[in-house]
């Protein structure tokens, strides 16, 4: 028994391109899982298959091959969506409804009782900073407010899986932070959150784990820590650092750069790094800091997207 609330196995999706034309492959056998309490980011350039993946999980589109499960049920079963909340990109909550009416309708469609809905609405509107807008028609809302209301509608039925497509789109910086905090709070309570965004900084700040999609395949997956760590590069702060020490490092095959009073060492592996540390200490040097040099998620993303695709 796993605690995976979303599970995707060998998922493949082809779209018909027209008579006589080969089908377009949107997803080419992707696998990933999102566990309870985890914030998972789905990244990729336009057309990589992010939205298609989310739509398959929600039963909006059928997979050509492979399987997907949500809450332990196949996604073809509408009951799999019983405790799923979804905020689509560019969603259109009917403008003729007020915030309260929209939340009531979507709450009812999720099987909630009227009393439960009445209790939840003020709490959720408070948490998305819209308490005074409860009885105003959605058509009067700004983009950011509509987005926050969309999040409240997605949360109305206490979902244990949240799928969010660009949730901070159009939201001001304070609102973004509040949404991040809200998502962290939901995750802390055991909700699995799948975040689909182009804003890499948002993903970096919010998610525990990410998968980068490229041409319908998972090009890389792991924790933010794993993806942004450059294992071959280390920052070293030590004293004394003299030319003979640098020459010794270079002789061992390491790349050495002086940056703002510290060294950036490029090594082959951990054994190589340890040899350099041994050399420093053998010369009476004192090591005060040794840490892997990290890149940003954006660096990793750009490198992955630009890298030539591996041939099967």
């Amino acid at each position, binding site marked *: 028994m796993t605690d995976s609330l979303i599970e995707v196995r060998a998922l493949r999706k082809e779209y018909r391109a027209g008579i006589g034309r080969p089908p377009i492959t949107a997803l080419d056998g992707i696998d990933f899982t999102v566990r309870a309490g985890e914030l998972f980011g789905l990244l990729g350039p336009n057309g990589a298959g992010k939205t298609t993946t989310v*739509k398959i999980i*929600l*039963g*909006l*589109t*059928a997979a050509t091959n492979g399987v997907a499960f949500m809450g332990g049920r196949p996604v073809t079963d*509408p*009951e*799999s*969506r*019983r405790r*799923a*909340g*979804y905020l*689509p990109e*560019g*969603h*259109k*909550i*009917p403008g*003729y*409804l007020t915030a309260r*009416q929209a939340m*009531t*309708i*979507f709450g*009812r*469609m*999720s*099987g*909630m009782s009227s009393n439960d809905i009445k209790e939840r609405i003020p709490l959720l509107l408070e948490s998305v900073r819209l308490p005074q807008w409860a009885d105003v*028609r959605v058509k009067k809302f700004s983009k950011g407010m509509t987005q926050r209301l969309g999040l409240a*509608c997605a949360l109305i039925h206490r979902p244990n899986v949240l*799928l969010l497509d660009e949730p901070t789109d159009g939201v001001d910086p304070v609102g973004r932070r509040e949404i991040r905090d809200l998502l962290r709070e939901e995750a802390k309570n055991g909700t699995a959150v799948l975040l689909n965004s182009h804003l890499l900084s948002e993903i970096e700040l919010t998610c525990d784990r990410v998968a980068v999609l490229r041409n319908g395949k998972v090009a890389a997956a792991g924790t933010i820590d794993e993806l942004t760590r450059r294992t071959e590069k280390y920052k070293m702060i030590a004293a004394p650092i003299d030319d003979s020490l640098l020459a010794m490092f270079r002789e061992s095959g390491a790349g050495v750069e002086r940056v703002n009073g510290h060294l950036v060492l490029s090594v082959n592996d951990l054994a190589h790094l340890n040899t350099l540390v041994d050399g420093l200490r053998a010369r009476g040097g004192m090591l005060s800091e040794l840490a892997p040099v990290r890149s940003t998620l954006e660096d990793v993303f750009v490198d992955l997207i630009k890298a030539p695709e591996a041939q099967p």
Partner: protein
Amino acid sequence: MKVLWANIEDVWREAAARWTLIAYFLLSTVFIIIFASAINLDIVDGALAGAKLFGKEVEMHDQVSIEKLVLGFESGFSAVLYFLCTFLAIFATAHLVPRLQEKGTIDLYLSRPVSRTKLLLSRYVSGLLLAGANVLYLLGSIWLIVAWKTHVMHPRFLIAGGVILFVIATLLAFAFFVGVVTSSTAVSIMASCGMFFFSAMLAAHDRIAAAVSHEWQAAMIQTLYWIIPKTAELGAAVFAFVSGNAFGSRMPQMTATPFLTTAAFGAGSLLLAIWRFHKKEF
């Protein structure tokens, strides 16, 4: 049931917010007011002594039985209301599926734990309730006005609303199918109105089939006649039902066949709409 309530609330709120509901009932009210003010009856001892229509005296040679007059009024008006109710219903409900299928809207509905069949049927029932409310309002108001002015009550006039609603249900099912396939309100309206008139035209299928030059064309006309709804025959059925066949000699003999084939068409359209909606990728 919660899904149905949610959809009913959604459809009615949309109709109210987009002025559809107001326009729908306003047009009906205008018709009712014209009807109420146009007719002025002078009844003496249960018989009609004089009548004014749009302010003009109607020539009366003998005293006419008020019962017969009301029957004539209601029969004639039921035929007018048959057209009015049907077309108002098509205009007021044809948008239900195309608007639901709009990008950014459909995702919000389908991401709920509701099967597509349930969602579409809830939408269909909601639309039918909206149309049914208007049929009841129109027929009920006219029935009450007639009852108030003449003290004659014919429940058959009210019950004829059932036949009108049956035709609306059939055309709404067809509009849903067209809406699912095309996602276009305009096309749904055109197709439903076109179906109404085309089907009325095919009431003369025997004469059309005899006039065409090829046998296959005649066979096609006859086949189409049996497939599509019988709007002309059902209009005649409304008239015959309200009049209690008092004008039987002028009306063709009514059978169950137009009802059965129309019901089959409506059910078929709805099943096709559900099937297509299930297959559709959003």
